[in-house]
């Protein structure tokens, strides 16, 4: 049986111009036009480079996407995964016709509706009911369609009492609920969704994910879904593509795709920021110069046994004296779930100003606390009284926890799947 392809992307590429659009614009335009009337190729199309955010390139033009090819079958839920800057959002923008590709084409057999943001075009002066109609129409519904679903939308949003109040009086959570409710009742053949699930409170998120599952599984709609939340991707999608630096590096079943993505993530146990590096985390008085993950022998190591203590050492440089602050970090697992957060609330730097120079701070994560898997650490500098975060750098360092059997582990000798986000060795009493 032949496949029923509903959407097909052929050689999609997208080029962006870096830096300021300003003085050079007119001269580039004229040059481009001059090449065109002589029947030559656009001179700026050639010089683009692959889009790697962290390395400095020589060209003003980059390819945010390069030669993307994929096909989607009717009823399939495709997850698009990749790191920040891999080109996911650009691809979604092209799919939803917000911007055009530089080369290539996308062919579709169905109406595409996109949900890159909830509440696009909401007007604060208008009531909830009026906004349902406006937002629905912006998303491509007709007035008739909206009217027929109005009651369901209001009920799903849980904002019935406020429905004739201007939206500017709503709490932000209520606005989001209402907006998601409108979007949830869209009925296109193909639905393109960006990470809109990360809104609302826990109860609403559960409702939203449930609704998404209904859309994709129950109603057999074709969905393209982009998210950093691997748990959501895993539960919703059937197929995945992995993007890296604007190219498709993997295409296949969702489990294999997630696996591929995680392996791709080149987390490092030791990072040094050179003095003039552009992405160095810093504010006026302090900068992060080095971070490393150490084992109990004080050696840098990316792999750690589940029973061992792990030390993360941050080195920062004080640039101005007389500052009071403290530091902290957050820990995320591979599915980007926020596992824990810790501030050095007893730090001497809160009361005692440091002289200029480089200082080291080490945090110890005890053994038998985290579950097996890969983790990513962020680092933050903040002030108390009043509380203010000076900077918070994600993905500073990372490490893997390797599971073990044995009496001193939580697992003991059990060899099956051990669930749970953390695995502390808890005491049991009679």
């Amino acid at each position, binding site marked *: 049986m032949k496949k029923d392809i509903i959407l097909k992307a052929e050689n999609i590429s997208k080029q962006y111009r870096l830096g300021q659009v300003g003085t050079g614009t007119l001269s580039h335009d004229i040059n481009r036009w001059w090449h065109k009337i002589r029947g030559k190729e656009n001179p700026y199309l050639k010089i683009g480079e692959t889009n790697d955010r962290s390395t400095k390139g020589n060209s003003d033009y980059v390819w945010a996407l390069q030669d993307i090819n994929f096909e989607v079958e009717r009823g399939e839920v495709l997850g698009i995964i990749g790191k920040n800057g891999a080109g996911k959002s650009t691809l979604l923008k092209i799919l939803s016709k917000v911007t*055009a590709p530089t080369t290539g084409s996308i062919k579709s057999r169905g109406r595409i509706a996109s949900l890159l943001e909830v509440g696009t075009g909401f007007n604060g002066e208008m009531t909830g009911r009026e906004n349902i109609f406006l937002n629905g129409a912006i998303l491509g519904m007709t007035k008739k369609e909206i009217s027929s679903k109005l009651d369901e939308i209001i009920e799903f949003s849980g904002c019935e009492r406020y429905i004739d109040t201007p939206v500017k009086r709503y709490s932000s959570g209520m606005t989001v609920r209402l907006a998601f409710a409108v979007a949830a009742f869209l009925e296109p053949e193909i639905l393109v969704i960006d990470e809109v699930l990360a809104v609302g409170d826990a109860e609403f998120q559960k409702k939203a994910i449930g609704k998404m599952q209904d859309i994709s599984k129950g109603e057999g709609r074709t969905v393209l879904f982009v998210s950093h939340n691997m748990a959501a991707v895993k539960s919703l999608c059937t197929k995945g593509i992995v993007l890296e630096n604007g190219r498709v590096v993997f295409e296949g079943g969702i489990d294999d795709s997630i696996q591929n993505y995680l392996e791709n993530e080149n987390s490092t146990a030791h990072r040094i920021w050179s003095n003039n590096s552009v992405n160095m985390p810093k504010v006026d008085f302090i900068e992060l110069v080095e971070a490393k993950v150490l084992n109990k022998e004080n050696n840098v190591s990316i792999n750690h046994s589940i029973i061992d203590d792990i030390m993360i050492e941050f080195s920062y440089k004080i640039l101005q004296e007389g500052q009071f602050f403290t530091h902290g970090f957050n820990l995320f697992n591979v599915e980007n779930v926020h596992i824990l957060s810790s501030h050095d609330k007893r730090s001497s730097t809160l009361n005692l100003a440091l002289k200029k120079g480089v200082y080291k701070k080490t945090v110890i994560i005890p053994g038998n606390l985290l579950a097996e898997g890969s983790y990513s650490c962020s680092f933050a500098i903040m002030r108390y009284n009043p509380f203010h975060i000076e900077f918070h750098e994600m993905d500073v360092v990372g490490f893997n926890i390797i599971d073990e059997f044995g009496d001193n582990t939580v697992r003991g000798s059990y060899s099956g799947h051990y669930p749970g986000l953390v695995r502390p060795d808890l005491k049991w009493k009679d």
Partner: protein
Amino acid sequence: MNDNNTPNDWLFEITPKNKFFSLNLKEVWQYRDLLLLFVKRDVITVYKQTVLGPLWYLIQPLFTSVTFTIIFNNVAGIDTGTVPPFLFNLAGITVWNYFTACLTGTSDTFKANAAIFGKVYFPRIITPLSVVISNLVKFGIQFLIFIGFYIFYYFQGANLGLNGLILFFPILIVIMGLLGLGLGMLISAMVTKYRDLSHLIGFGIQLLMYLSAVMYPMSLIKDKLPGYGWLVEYNPLAYIVETTRYMLLNVGEVSLLGLSYTLAVTIAVFFIGLLVFNKTEKSFIDTV
């Protein structure tokens, strides 16, 4: 068995460039509800949380007419014939206001709506169209006040005459709207790359008003400034304003040649505007 290789089988295709000229009326028709909702939004959000509400629509033209009457008629002594100067100015200002509202409202389409345009697709032309239509409501209210004063002056015994051509007045307003829309679309497309233009608009409109026979009859400039009269004569807006007064107040002159010229310019500007707008809408989000 369905065959995937038939090229016509696709519902639509997303490609780097629009076809040279594609208005895609069918798509605009599909989104007609959105157009109406935008108009509704524009109209109702103006009144919300104001004490005087729609009265604000009336205050501006009335005060401008009074000012013009004092400065141009009482001080400078421009002769408006048998028509009361205030009514003469009010007629000019009412149509002129419609044009400026359309032009300023549409000329920042891309910039002002970047947030929506960056997140969702609908035919972009819906936005400037809604501006032109919602301003028609505002124009209607301002026109009512003109009628009010017209009746007032009539009973005061002023020598006022309606012209039979008044039946064509709606067509004149449509032409005015199209001209504003065409120019606005052209400018909005250019503003996405060259922000300088947005500074020029407010100032440019003001200058243009003086060249559009709003506060003087067209014949006057030919008498007083024969060397510069062509500036007004080549201005299609001047013919619209002059013809409006001819239709409503029976003053001035109506030139068929001038009106045909105006119509030709309007159609040309509208289609050029549409063309540039269509070309821009596909990837403006990268430059705006």
